[in-house]
């Protein structure tokens, strides 16, 4: 059984990406697809985060994302904006 997602950037690519098994020269296309303004990027980001959650849980770190990532990124943006 596979998911019914329709985004052309398929789950096999996401899975290989998270395992560090995607050829580096193909990372750029994935980043373009993940940009906030890219069509279907919300769906793609969601699948990526779910696959990462599964990876972490199987690897021994069971922690759902309760906004943890977004809070890190918010602080990072503030940090970046405060730079001279």
């Amino acid at each position, binding site marked *: 059984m596979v998911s019914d997602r329709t985004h052309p950037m398929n789950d096999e690519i996401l899975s290989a990406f998270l395992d560090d098994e995607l050829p*580096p020269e193909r*990372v750029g296309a994935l980043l373009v697809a993940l940009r906030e303004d890219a069509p279907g990027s919300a769906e793609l980001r969601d699948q990526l985060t779910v696959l990462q959650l*599964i990876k972490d849980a199987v690897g021994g770190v*069971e922690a759902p994302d309760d906004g943890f990532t977004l*809070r890190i990124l918010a602080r990072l943006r503030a940090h970046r904006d405060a730079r001279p």
Partner: protein
Amino acid sequence: MRVETLNPAPPAAPPGDADAPRAAPPASVDGELVARACAGEEIAFELLVVKYQRRAAAEIRRVVHDAAIVEELTQDAFMRAYDGLPDLQDRDRFWPWLRTISRNVASSYLRSGQNRLDDRPADPDADATILAFEQHASHGSVEDELAARQLFEALRRAMAALPDRQRDAILMREIEGLDYRSIAATMGLPVNTVKSLIFRGRDAIAVAIRPMLQPTRSRRW
């Protein structure tokens, strides 16, 4: 079965600081993300956060036990990593570098005398899984705790229900840390078959747990 439709990628962006000593061209996904982050591509560092935030927090939890402090220190670790990224020589080894930063942040906190609220003894042998769950539970509501327990129980059931080869391949990847080539050699299968087994197994688990994740979609990246 879906067909891969990925177009050829554009060449990697050049490094940002022309005066800094340059590492070899990236040989890995992480190396490529680091190179792009150094060149100002913000989403590249965001992806490093998505990939490693739980593992960084788990490293810190080995010595610090208060959930709010663990979160703050995890943020500190990523800030330090962001600032220090241009100086990372071996860009393909981002995680070992971040893990060291995370440990150092935790150790600095303990030495700083700011740990009066976190006076439980450190236990370096503590099980990271249990600690991670306890920390999450103590940081959220009773409803969140219940939802988290149900989520990971469902995840374990889905994992147990996978065909043996899918489950074996995923366990070799996540528990033993083997790369696809090593898993393929161990299982006597082509590398592409291993890649497919792992992605199909994860996809099946994702389908099983996705309904439980919908209520929290807005809290994720």
